[in-house]
C-alpha cells in the first residue's frame, strides 16, 4: 500500500487523539475518585447508585427521626420514674396518716402535701418533648391534663417506621400511665386521698395506701413499656446505621474508582500519550523534503 504524508499524519493524529482521550478519562477518574459520573459511564451502576442513594437518604433521615423520638421516649421514661417517686412519697404519707396517733390537724396539713404532689404529678404529665406534649397521644398541641387533673388527650399511638414497611409505637401513653385506662386514675386517686386527709377519713386514708401502691405499679409498668419502646427505637437506629454502612460500601463499590487502579491507569495513559507525542514528532521530522 502506498503511504502518503497525510496517511502518516492521520495515523499519528488518530493515535494521539485516542491517547489524549484515554489520558483525559483516566485524569477525570483519578481526580474525582469516581468511575461513574453519568448514566452513560455505566448505566447499570448508575441505576444502582440511584437506588442506593435513595436508601441512604431514607436510612439517614430515619435514624434522625428515630433518635429524636427515642430521646423523647427517654424523657418520658424519666418523667414516669419521677412520677413513680411522687406516688411512692404519697404512699409513705398514706402509711403515716393511717397511724391512729396522727391528729386531724396533722392530717389536714398532710392533705396540703398531697395536693402539692398532685400538682407536681399534673406538671410532670404535662411535660413537653421535641414534638409537643409527651403524654397527650396525638393531641400534642395542648396540655393533656387540666389543672383539675382531667385528661383531655387520647391514647392514639404515633408510629414510626423502623424499617421499610415496619412500624413501632414511638410515643408514651399518658392514658395508660396516669388514667383509668391503665387501671387507676392517679389524679383522682390523689384527689380522693387529699380529701380523705382533709376530712380525717381514716378508712379513706387506709384505702389510699392500696391505691397509691396500685398507682405506683401502674407508673412502673408504663415506665418499663416506655423504656422498651425507647430501646427499640435506639436499637433500630443502630441497626439502620449498620445497614447504612453496608449500603454505602456497596455504593462505593459500584461507582467509585479503586485508587490503585485509577493511578495506575493514569500513569499508563500518560506514558502512552507521551509516547504518542514523541512518535508524532519523529514522524514529522523524517522527510525527504529537507534533504
Amino acid at each position, binding site marked *: 500500500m502506498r503511504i502518503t504524508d497525510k496517511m502518516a499524519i492521520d495515523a499519528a493524529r488518530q493515535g494521539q487523539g485516542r491517547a489524549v482521550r484515554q489520558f483525559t478519562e483516566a485524569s477525570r477518574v483519578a481526580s474525582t475518585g469516581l468511575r461513574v459520573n453519568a448514566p452513560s459511564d455505566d*448505566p447499570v451502576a*448508575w441505576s444502582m447508585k440511584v437506588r442506593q442513594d435513595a436508601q441512604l437518604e431514607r436510612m439517614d433521615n430515619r435514624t434522625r427521626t428515630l433518635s429524636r423520638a427515642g430521646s423523647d421516649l427517654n424523657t418520658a421514661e424519666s418523667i414516669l420514674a419521677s412520677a413513680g417517686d411522687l406516688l411512692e412519697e404519697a404512699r409513705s404519707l398514706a402509711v403515716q396518716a393511717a397511724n391512729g396517733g396522727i391528729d386531724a390537724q396533722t392530717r389536714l396539713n398532710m392533705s396540703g402535701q398531697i395536693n402539692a404532689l398532685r400538682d407536681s404529678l399534673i406538671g410532670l404529665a404535662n411535660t413537653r418533648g421535641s414534638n409537643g406534649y409527651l403524654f397527650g397521644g396525638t393531641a400534642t398541641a395542648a396540655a393533656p391534663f387540666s389543672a383539675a387533673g382531667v385528661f383531655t388527650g387520647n391514647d392514639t399511638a404515633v*408510629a414510626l417506621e423502623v424499617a421499610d414497611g415496619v412500624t413501632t409505637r414511638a410515643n408514651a401513653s399518658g392514658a395508660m400511665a396516669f388514667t383509668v385506662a391503665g387501671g387507676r386514675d392517679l389524679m383522682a386517686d390523689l384527689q380522693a386521698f387529699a380529701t380523705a386527709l382533709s376530712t380525717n377519713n381514716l378508712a379513706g386514708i387506709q384505702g389510699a395506701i392500696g391505691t397509691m401502691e396500685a398507682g405506683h405499679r401502674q407508673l412502673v409498668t408504663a415506665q418499663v413499656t416506655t423504656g422498651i419502646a425507647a430501646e427499640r427505637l435506639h436499637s433500630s437506629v443502630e441497626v439502620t446505621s449498620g445497614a447504612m454502612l453496608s449500603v454505602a460500601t456497596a455504593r462505593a463499590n459500584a461507582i467509585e474508582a479503586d485508587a490503585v487502579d485509577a493511578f495506575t491507569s493514569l500513569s499508563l495513559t500518560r506514558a502512552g500519550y507521551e509516547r504518542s507525542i514523541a512518535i508524532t514528532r519523529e514522524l514529522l521530522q523524517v522527510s525527504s523534503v529537507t534533504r
Partner: protein
Amino acid sequence: MPSLFSLLNVARDGMQAQSAGVSVTGQNISNVNTPGYVRRGVVLSARAFGQDSTGGVSVLGISRSFNRFAHGRVVEEHGRRGAAAARAEALTATEASLTPNSRTVADRVNAMFQAFDTLSGAPGDAAARLEVLQQAGNLAQQVSSTAGDLATQRDELFTQARGVAGEVNTRLARIATLNRAIAEATALGDAGADLRDQRDLLVQEVGDRLGARSIEDATGQVTLFSAGTVLVEGGNASSVSVSLDPANNLRLTVAQPGGATTDATAGMTQGTLGGLREARDVDIVAAQTSLDQFAFDLATAVNTAHAAGFGLDAVSGRNLFAAPAVVAGAARAMALDPAVIGQPDRVAAAAAAGDIPGGNNVALQLAGLASRPLGAAATTPAERFGAVAADLGVRLQSALAEEQLRDDTVYQAETLRESAAGVSLDEEMVNLSKFQRAFEASTRVLRVADELLDTLMKSF
C-alpha cells in the same frame, strides 16, 4: 533517415515533457493539504522512431489517480459517522439535562420523601410542614424544567436540522453546476480534474449530512442518490427541506426540479440529519414519555395518599400536586396544587381529624411511598427515575460506541482512498529530481545537437 536538425526537435520535446512533469509535480506538492485533491500524473508517450519520424516524447495528458470504489466507501462511511456523531452529541446534551451534576430529579425525590419522613416524626411542627412544601415544590419544578429542557432540545435539534438541510441544498446546487461544467469540459477533451475534485468533495459533504451514493456516467456527470431518492441528476438538483409532521416529528421533503415533491423521511437514516432524527424523534421522545409517566405516577400516588389525610385545619381531600389529567405532558405540568402553596397547615399528616396535630399515619404513608413500587412498575420512585436516566445512558453509550466505530471505519476508508489518491511528498521529491534530471539531459541533447551543427557549419 532523421536529419541532424530533427535532433533539436527531440531535445525540445524532451524539455517540454519534463517541464510538464515538473509542473504536475509542483501542482501535487502545492495541493498536498488541499481537501479533496486527487494527485495528478503526467502521461508521457514516446514518439515512434522511424523513417519519417525523429522519435522523441509527447505529453498525452494529465492523469487523476481516482479510485471510485474507495471514494464511494468513504462517502458511505462518512454518512454513517455523521449519523452516529450527531446522535451522540445530541444525547450528551440530553444526558446533561436529565442528570445534572448538582442535583438530579432522583435527589429531589429523595429530599421530598425525607421531608415526609421528618413530618412523620413531627407532624405538628410548622418547620417540618414548610419543608414538605419546599421539597415537593423543588421536585415539581425540577421535573417540569427537565421536561422543558427536553422539549427545548427537540426544538433546537429541529432548527439544527433545518440548517443542515440548507447546507445540503447549497452543495446539491453546486454539484449540479459542476456536473454541467465537467460534461462541457469532457466534450472538449479536457478531463476536468479540478472540477471533479471539487464535486467529489461536495458529494462527500452531502454524505456527511444526509448520506449519499453517486454513480458517474460517460460524460463524467454523477447521479447522486440520498435518503432513498435522487437528489442530483446531471445538471439538475433537487432541494430538501425539513419540517415537522403533525406528531411533531421531523419530516424530510424533497422538491424535484420539475416541481414534484416526495416525502423522504423514511430514508433519513444517515448523516447528520439521520442522527438528529434518531436522537430527536426516538431517543429524546422515549425519555420524555418515561418522564411523563414517572411524573404522572408519582403525583397520583402522592395525591392519593395526601388526599386521604387531614391538614391542621381538619380539612381532608386536598392534593399536594396539581392533579395530572393525562400522562402526556404530566412532567412539564408538574406543580404544587394551588390550594397548598404557602399553606403548610394544609399539608396532611393525620389520618383522622381527631388525630390532629400529632397524628402521623398519612405522613408515614407518604414517606413509605419512597420504598414502595410506583404505579404499574415494580420499582420505587427514585429507581423509576434511575431507569429513565439509565435508559438514556444506554442509548448514549451505544451512540458513543457507534461513533467510535465509525471513526475507525472512516479512517480505514480514507486510508484506502488516500493510498491511491493522496500526495506523497517523498514520491514528489523523487519525481521532481527525476524530471529535473531528464530536463537537464534534454538540454544536454540540445547542446550536443548545437555543437554538431556548429562543427558541421565550421567544416565548410
